[in-house]
């Protein structure tokens, strides 16, 4: 075949494929938003879910998702930051580092359901924490750690060595250089990584169904003592999140309006991911401007 003709045919096919994929992706997003957004209302977002009747909301699930995300980030960020700093600043090229790098890579490729089952076995059953926010947060931390560590490491790596040399030239120790020079310089991109991983954690369900549980007991939003059973802040209560709720009502639920509730909940999840994606970039940019003299 003539090279020019085949070039034209191939280009046409590539246009076709790209067009189909755009259509598919746009259709997907459109479907979720088109079906879900009409169900969103203040009532839907703020009223508890109903097991047997129509008209329930997602108030507790939404709160659980946000609270669980917060606790997860509280646990996983310091660990990931430490591990990332060690990997990029201290680790030497030796067998110990290679093994740990491999371990992190393996952890990041584990199916989330396996992480959830491990959490169930160790935290829920062996450590007797039961189905609770704390168990769920630990499972999500395990799920989140490898990617967050890698993103912290990448952020630190992008800081030129010149900065480290400048720190050393001023007589700072390595640790002081990291804390006072490298970390602030890397902060915008670290924050971007954290917010992006938050989006991932927010929608995770498989790691949670056997750790944070599949029930959302009623919460009393006027009771902020974390040790009361009905307090929203209680760490030891079972907490069904939004993503788990979608799965639960679609596979076992008997609500007459399960499809509507899940459409609405899906739209909330997508909008949350969208917000996380946009704000990650925005916060990174703003921080960069604030912390450096870049205009």
């Amino acid at each position, binding site marked *: 075949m003539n090279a020019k003709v085949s070039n034209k045919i191939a280009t046409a096919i590539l246009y076709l494929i*790209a067009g189909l994929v755009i259509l598919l992706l746009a259709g997907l997003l459109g479907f979720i938003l088109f079906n879900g957004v009409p169900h969103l209302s203040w009532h839907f977002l703020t009223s508890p879910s109903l097991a047997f009747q129509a008209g329930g909301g997602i108030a507790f699930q939404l709160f659980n998702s946000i609270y669980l995300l917060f606790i997860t980030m509280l646990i996983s960020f*310091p*660990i990931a930051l430490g591990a990332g700093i060690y990997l990029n600043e201290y680790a030497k090229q030796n067998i110990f580092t290679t093994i740990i790098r491999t371990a992190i890579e*393996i952890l990041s490729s584990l*199916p989330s359901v396996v992480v959830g089952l491990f959490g169930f076995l160790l935290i829920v059953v062996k450590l007797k924490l039961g189905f609770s926010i704390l168990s769920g947060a630990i499972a999500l931390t395990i799920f989140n750690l490898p990617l967050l560590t890698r993103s912290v490491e990448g952020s630190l790596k992008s800081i030129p060595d010149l900065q480290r040399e400048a720190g050393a030239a001023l007589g700072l*120790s390595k*640790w002081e250089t*990291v804390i006072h020079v490298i970390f602030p310089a890397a902060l915008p991109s670290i924050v971007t990584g954290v917010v992006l991983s938050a989006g991932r954690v927010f*929608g995770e369900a498989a790691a949670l169904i056997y750790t944070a549980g599949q029930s959302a007991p009623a919460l009393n939003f006027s009771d902020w003592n974390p040790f009361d059973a009905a307090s929203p802040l209680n760490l030891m209560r079972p907490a069904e999140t939004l993503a788990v709720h979608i799965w639960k009502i679609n596979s076992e639920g008997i609500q007459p309006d399960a499809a509507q509730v899940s459409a609405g909940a899906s739209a909330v*999840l997508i909008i949350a991911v969208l917000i996380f994606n946009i704000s990650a970039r925005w916060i990174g940019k703003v921080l960069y401007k604030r912390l450096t003299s870049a205009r």
Partner: protein
Amino acid sequence: MDQIRESLLKTSIATKRERFGRSITMAALILIAVIVISIFYFIASKGLSTFFVDKINVWDFLSGKTWNPSSTDAHGKPEVGALPMIVGSFLITVLSAIIATPFAIGTAVFMTEISPKNGSRILQPVIELLVGIPSVVYGFIGLTVIVPLQRHIFGGSGFGVLAGTVVLFVMILPTVTSMTVDTLRSVPHYYRESALAIGATRWQAIYKVILRAATPGILTAIVFGMARAFGEALAVQMVVGNAPILPANLTSPAATLTSILTQGIGNTVMGSMQNDVLWTLALILLLMSLVFNIIIRLIGKKGELK
């Protein structure tokens, strides 16, 4: 004199902080390694007790075609053949990867070579957003769109291999595409220029030079997508039908390792044989994710040599 001597020989505050910082960051890293080791230890010890405590033959387990842990067969042995789930998982993973690959490569080539402007302005953000969409949302869409569609076209319940494949295809497409885009972007610019300079058409440059140079990266992207598909639990569980039988055809209900796991763990008693066999399924999942990891490493190594 003694004072100066002492202050010189004493560990300075900066050194103490240095040691503190170094050890605390190292502790964080070791914690991650310990977590990985304990995941393997706990899942393996639970999963292997099927064979060591409940005395089930490994081969019977892997090749048995009936899965009904609560009853026993004619010989008084429990019916725990995991073959239907293993076949189901592999079938759905491979099929969805086969469908996703041409679309992912085509879109990635379009985004990097044909129309980089539209690619980075329109497609890139959409794909990044789709990578982040929770898998339950994909499952829910599968349940409301694809299952009724399959029921309408092929009859039956609508749940099955085909529905699972389509859901996973849509789910891994953004991931594979964005990874392929990264690979294509990392192909040096002078490859394109030299191909065009010796008179190649754009398609010849893409097909004979760029795609060849990017092959290891593209393969990695595909294997990565397969690993994600293999380990996906809830989205598949919602549409696959969860019937632990060997699928007779593409529209018949099936089950995957993950779908039986998520369904069963809550309904069995810890320590019982019915529960142990589920942990064995989890162990298979764990080992398979290890295998995918090794394949990705091998591809990476082979790509390096060239």
